[in-house]
């Protein structure tokens, strides 16, 4: 996510949505692995931002929207984890996961599965760190936790991912 974040001081809400919808939708999909749910969560996040637009626009509206979105996604992932028998995702998501490009050593689709299996906060930390390119401090602000908590979530997620990658390379 190399594009510079949209500052809201001089833009209208509609312009802000146009500029950020793509980036935030991708973030939402990586967080919940469900395109339709991601759109719904992003819509809720935009609603909340629109209600406070005048105040939010003075700061960093994209960071605010991302914070709302990430917390909505974490809540949703927890809710889904509580009722695991409910089918989630759609055909398009499954197709996307199935034909995901095997990036860097044939770990593509399987890597998605491992990321999907991570606990909600660990997955959020990974997405914010490696997709949104946020620092530990920014991730801590986004999630409303301490930097130490961010470090521990990252470390645990990396242990799980490393194990998966080692196994993937061992099979080759």
């Amino acid at each position: 996510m190399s594009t510079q974040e949209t500052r809201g001081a001089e833009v209208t809400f509609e312009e802000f949505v146009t500029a950020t919808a793509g980036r935030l939708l991708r973030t939402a999909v990586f967080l919940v692995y469900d395109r339709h749910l991601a759109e719904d969560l992003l819509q809720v996040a935009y609603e909340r931002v629109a209600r406070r637009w005048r105040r939010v626009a003075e700061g960093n509206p994209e960071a605010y929207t991302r914070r709302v979105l990430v917390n909505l996604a974490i809540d949703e992932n927890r809710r889904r984890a509580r009722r695991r028998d409910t089918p989630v995702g759609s055909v398009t998501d499954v197709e996307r996961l199935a034909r995901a490009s095997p990036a860097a050593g044939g770990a593509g689709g399987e890597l998605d599965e491992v990321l999907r299996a991570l606990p909600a906060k660990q997955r959020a930390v990974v997405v914010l760190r490696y997709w949104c390119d946020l620092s530990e401090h920014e991730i801590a602000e986004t999630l409303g936790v301490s930097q130490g908590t961010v470090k521990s979530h990252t470390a645990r997620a990396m242990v799980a991912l490393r194990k998966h990658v080692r196994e993937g390379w061992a099979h080759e």
Partner: protein
Amino acid sequence: MSDELEALLRDHYRAAADEIHAEPATVRRFQEVGQTTGRPAAPASGVRRWGLPLLAAAVTAAVVMAVTVLLWPGRGAGRQELPRPMAPPTSTPAPGTPPGTPLPAPLPSRPAIEPSRIPDGGTSEARPSGRSGQPPSGAPLPARPKAKPSPEPTQ
């Protein structure tokens, strides 16, 4: 290993992001959500959100006030004030002395000094008359001539 894994994750997200696009219809839906349920609805939403808690707080405060007023010691209908002595028993005044507590006799030189201490148009009326414990504008003081207990100098 860690660097490789980080690079793997970044590549993975970048590759997956190429397949996720926000369609114009989706973007329009997001914009319309902002227009319809967004800014104009904010005050109504705030009223809806805070109306019930505010009402509950007002009712609670009213009940607490009513209970406090009813049960406050000495204010309730079932409670009566403890009897208190009204005043010390009055002694029989000596013949010739006026009733009530006599004021101390003013010094003869007092009228000459007092105007110089009180500025013109000052608040001499508002000041206490010299007796402690007597309200400044309370019950009228007894007349000065009556309040002079000092006997007339014998000539």
